[in-house]
């Protein structure tokens, strides 16, 4: 490299030396008496060819290969600089195309491709079970969770796992730090930390000894919670915190980014699950299981191992005297182990691949546009290139020049694209799509940069090869003769550009169809009746009352009643109620066998399982969920002795035939019969795009089996307030004060409006919609630019022909139509190809659609019309210019 820079000096030195040499020789000859003129001629003759020798001397310093590449590069830069409009358009198009693809690649790579952030993550599996024979269960989950007894069976008797653990989410109240607050806790059994195998950032793991069912064991904190509440103070280790009013010692902190089975859920506190091995029934399917397989074991082998253990489990445990352990045989429990990564990624994979494919198509469209521009430029140089080829320039030499220009475009575009990608990712992270797992791992890393580089180089080569293929090939002398002066351009010269336009239209059509289907999906979702109304005016407040604070269930119901009264007194609040879980909150549902009077009365006959929820009086009124029959709960139902229930409409129809018929009938979960007093409309509990489950609603009163902790009713409840001021800071503060007037130790969480909760459940659709919408509009704009560019270039090339036609008496209207028609023909072919492609590709999007078929006829009619309209408009402008040509001027030019 130094050579390149010091060379200017060398060259001037060399010329100096040669000049000195000649001057000295002339001096000498003059001294010898030769005339000066004569002397100069002789000196030069003796010296030889000055220019040639200087040239040779310079070549000594050259690095000839690189030199001529460098020269080509400089030429390309200069040529682009001469056409700033072209350069800016091409670079912007490429920067956006490559940038968007790089950004999405970063997301796909971080979310889908990279292993989970646990050592040897490929050994981790999620212990999923299926129970196709369990009636009613299929209503809400195709997945059966593990029971404590299963955990003990699996962990003690498996042959394929290094370790097995179970865990469960819950919310706990932490008091005594700042304000009381509700935080997320993960209850973990022995084996969970060993399975995930991430060492603690501070302190130690929860140990086997900590899993003592008879004492309140220690806890660990998440890194985030440690930073938030303790400012990252190491002194926190060993301190006690009040968890649900019980003092628990902090023994360790997990490192930043650690999650218990990474997903959209994050914990603040890790608690030992402390399962009592001596008190586990068969049932209690509420735990999620993970396992680390031994090295070299496949998922299928592990699956077979667990399948072997299911009968063992049934033999070893019991639900109590008099029950039949083999009853579960009819459930047909089978393991369905999944690699943990698949569990974490969930359904987001399909969204991301669709987005990636979409942007890939945008990239293709961007390529065709820039390729078109390059073709036009190469065509303008047709004469020059032909002459050079005729003078003996090698095919490769000319190809190289064209390639250098396009690769330069690609690389500069790539550099700009990294900026675009960075901005795009920041935007994405700022949007915080809640349904995107592993969000915290998304970054523009080396892989992304490599991808951008690859794409940039590929862009350069692909773009360069088209004109190279057209012009460097043969470089025939024909070009010289036919280039400028013939009457009109040959068909051959338009073919490549026409093909590009057709491709562009086809791709734009596919994207627009996709975007439109998403818009229609969104519309359908918006028109689904969620079972509640005017969600923007419903404020939610979540309050948990731990057993350690108020042990007596009757007292809890009292406290909740007091809170409702206090909240109802807030000015502007129209009505207040609460439920154990509000719709779409993602709170885990409760379910059990529900018996109906007059049927399934015998002990071993098992009715279907049903989901249930606890709701207060006025809850349905507040949510504006219509009562179909009967009446709402009253406070007398809550505090009084008469057991009652409300059914959802679909459940009432299923069990009793009609809502009216259900009123007065009796059902039970345990021993006590409850009278059905009302039927309410179905509610989309699990999200607007999910079917509304059949539900039983109990009043929030103490369970009918006293002393069974797990059967406790709504200790955690979501209070709903209907008010014009929902979502305002003022209402939230007043609601908080209302709670604290009842009990100052109660934490308040989940302060949202119902509208926000409902929107979150549509997040996947809106995310896909936004991405496809952006891609679709980009495709449309690029496609229109492409058509406009081709037609207007054709017009400029055919001025002469148009002049002749006009001179011979062609009608201007007919001329205009000729150009519009050629655009429409291209569009028509593109639409045809695009429709076929769309029909195939949209099947892949099926899982993202709701209420719309992937072959939606409206969409498939409207989009081609829109495209044809755009094409007609894009070609009309240049066509009008063509018709406006003055024949004399056109024929006289050149």
């Amino acid at each position, binding site marked *: 490299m130094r050579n390149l820079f010091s060379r200017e000096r*060398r060259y001037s*030195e*060399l010329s*100096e*030396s*040669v000049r*000195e*040499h000649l*001057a*000295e*020789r002339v*001096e000498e000859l003059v001294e010898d008496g030769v005339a000066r003129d004569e002397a100069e001629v002789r000196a030069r003759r*003796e*010296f*030889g*060819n*000055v220019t040639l*020798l*200087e040239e*040779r*001397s*310079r*070549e*000594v*310093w050259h690095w000839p290969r690189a030199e001529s590449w460098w020269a080509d590069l400089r030429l390309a830069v200069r040529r682009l600089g001469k056409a700033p409009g072209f350069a800016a358009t091409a670079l912007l198009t490429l920067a956006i195309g490559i940038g968007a693809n790089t950004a999405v690649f970063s997301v796909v790579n971080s979310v889908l491709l990279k292993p989970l952030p646990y050592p040897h993550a490929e050994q981790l599996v999620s212990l999923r079970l299926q129970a196709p024979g369990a009636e009613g269960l299929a209503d809400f989950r195709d997945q059966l969770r593990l029971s404590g007894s299963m955990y003990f069976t699996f962990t003690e008797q498996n042959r394929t796992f290094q370790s097995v653990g179970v865990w469960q989410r819950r919310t706990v109240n932490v008091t005594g730090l700042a304000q009381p607050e509700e935080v997320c806790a993960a209850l973990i059994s022995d084996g969970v930390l060993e399975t995930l195998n991430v060492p603690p950032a501070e302190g130690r793991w929860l140990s086997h000894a900590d899993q003592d069912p008879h004492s309140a064991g220690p806890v660990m904190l998440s890194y985030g919670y440690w930073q938030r509440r303790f400012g990252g103070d190491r002194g926190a280790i060993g301190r006690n915190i009040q968890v649900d009013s019980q003092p628990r010692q902090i023994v360790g902190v997990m490192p930043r980014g650690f999650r218990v089975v990474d997903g959209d859920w994050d914990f603040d506190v890790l608690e030992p699950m402390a399962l009592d091995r001596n008190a586990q029934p068969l049932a209690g399917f509420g735990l999620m299981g993970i396992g680390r397989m031994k090295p070299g074991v496949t998922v299928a082998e592990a699956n077979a191992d667990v399948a072997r253990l299911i009968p063992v489990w049934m033999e070893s445990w019991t639900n109590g005297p008099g029950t039949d352990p083999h009853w579960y045989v009819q459930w047909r429990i089978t393991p369905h182990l999944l690699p943990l990564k698949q569990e974490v990624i969930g359904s987001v994979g399909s969204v991301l691949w669709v987005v990636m494919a979409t942007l890939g198509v945008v990239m293709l469209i961007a390529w065709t546009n820039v390729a078109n521009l390059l073709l036009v430029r190469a065509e303008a140089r047709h004469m020059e290139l032909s002459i050079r080829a005729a003078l003996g320039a090698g095919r490769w030499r000319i190809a190289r020049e064209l390639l250098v220009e396009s690769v330069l475009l690609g690389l500069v575009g790539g550099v700009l694209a990294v900026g675009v990608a960075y901005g795009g990712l920041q935007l994405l992270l700022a949007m915080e799509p809640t349904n995107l797992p592993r969000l915290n791992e998304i970054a523009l890393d080396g892989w992304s940069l490599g991808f951008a580089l690859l794409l940039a180089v590929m862009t350069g080569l692909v773009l360069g090869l088209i004109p190279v293929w057209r012009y460097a090939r043969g470089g025939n002398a024909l070009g010289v003769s036919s280039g400028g002066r013939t009457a009109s351009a040959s068909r051959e010269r338009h073919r490549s550009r026409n093909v590009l336009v057709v491709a562009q239209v086809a791709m734009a059509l596919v994207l627009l169809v996709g975007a439109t289907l998403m818009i229609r999906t969104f519309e359908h979702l918006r028109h689904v009746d969620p079972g509640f109304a005017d969600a923007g005016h419903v404020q939610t407040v979540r309050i948990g009352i731990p057993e350690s604070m108020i042990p007596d269930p009757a007292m809890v119901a009292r406290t909740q009643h007091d809170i409702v009264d206090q909240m109802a007194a807030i000015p502007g609040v129209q009505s207040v109620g609460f439920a154990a879980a509000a719709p779409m909150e993602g709170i885990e549902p409760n379910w059990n066998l529900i018996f109906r009077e007059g049927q399934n009365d015998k002990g071993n006959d098992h009715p279907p399982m049903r989901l249930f929820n606890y709701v207060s009086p006025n809850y349905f009124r507040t949510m504006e969920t219509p009562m179909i029959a009967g009446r709402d709960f009253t406070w007398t139902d809550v505090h009084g002795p008469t057991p009652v229930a409300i059914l959802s409409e679909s459940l009432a129809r299923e069990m009793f035939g009609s809502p009216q018929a259900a009123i007065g009938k009796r059902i039970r979960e345990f021993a006590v019969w409850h009278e059905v007093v009302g039927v309410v409309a179905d509610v989309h509990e699990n999200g607007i795009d999910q079917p509304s489950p059949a539900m039983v609603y109990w009043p929030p009163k103490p369970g009918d089996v006293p002393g069974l902790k797990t059967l406790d009713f709504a200790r955690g409840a979501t209070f709903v307030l209907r008010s014009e001021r929902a979502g305002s800071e003022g209402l939230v503060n007043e609601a908080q004060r209302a709670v604290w007037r009842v009990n100052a130790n109660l934490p308040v969480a989940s302060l949202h409006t119902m509208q926000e909760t409902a929107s979150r459940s549509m997040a996947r659709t809106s995310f896909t919609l936004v991405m496809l919408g952006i891609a679709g509009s980009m495709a449309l704009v690029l496609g229109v630019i492409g058509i406009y560019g081709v037609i207007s270039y054709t017009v400029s090339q055919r001025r002469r022909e148009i002049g002749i036609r006009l001179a011979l008496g062609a009608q201007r209207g007919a001329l205009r139509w000729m150009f519009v028609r050629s655009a429409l023909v291209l569009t028509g072919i593109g639409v045809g190809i695009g429709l076929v492609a769309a029909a195939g590709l949209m099947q892949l999007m099926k899982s993202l659609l709701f209420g719309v078929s992937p072959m939606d006829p409206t969409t498939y009619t409207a989009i081609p019309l829109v495209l044809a309209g755009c094409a007609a408009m894009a070609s009309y402008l240049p066509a009008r210019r063509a018709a406006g040509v003055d024949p004399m001027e056109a024929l006289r030019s050149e």
Partner: protein
Amino acid sequence: MGKEEYRDLFPGALELMILQTLYRRPLHGYALAQHIKAISDELLQIEEGSLYPALQRMLKAGWLESEMGMSPRNRPVRIYKVTAAGAKRLEAERSSFEKMFAGITRVLAT
């Protein structure tokens, strides 16, 4: 690179002559050309100018270096002199030439 350079001489002859001349005494381009011409005029036909590409090659190879000096006519000129690497090269070239000449002589003597 530049093989035509050796049309009139066998490969390396010009370099050897330049190195030998400059090793004895640093000279500027014109003086060097005159010197080589003078000693080889009858035997070898070279253009004065053909020295310069050779000089550049040798500068690049590091056998020579140039510095500003004064010509006998009191003009500022570039004086070329042999570097340590150049001296080593001269030694190697000379011995290989001598071997070659000895070989040729022996062949011609038979």
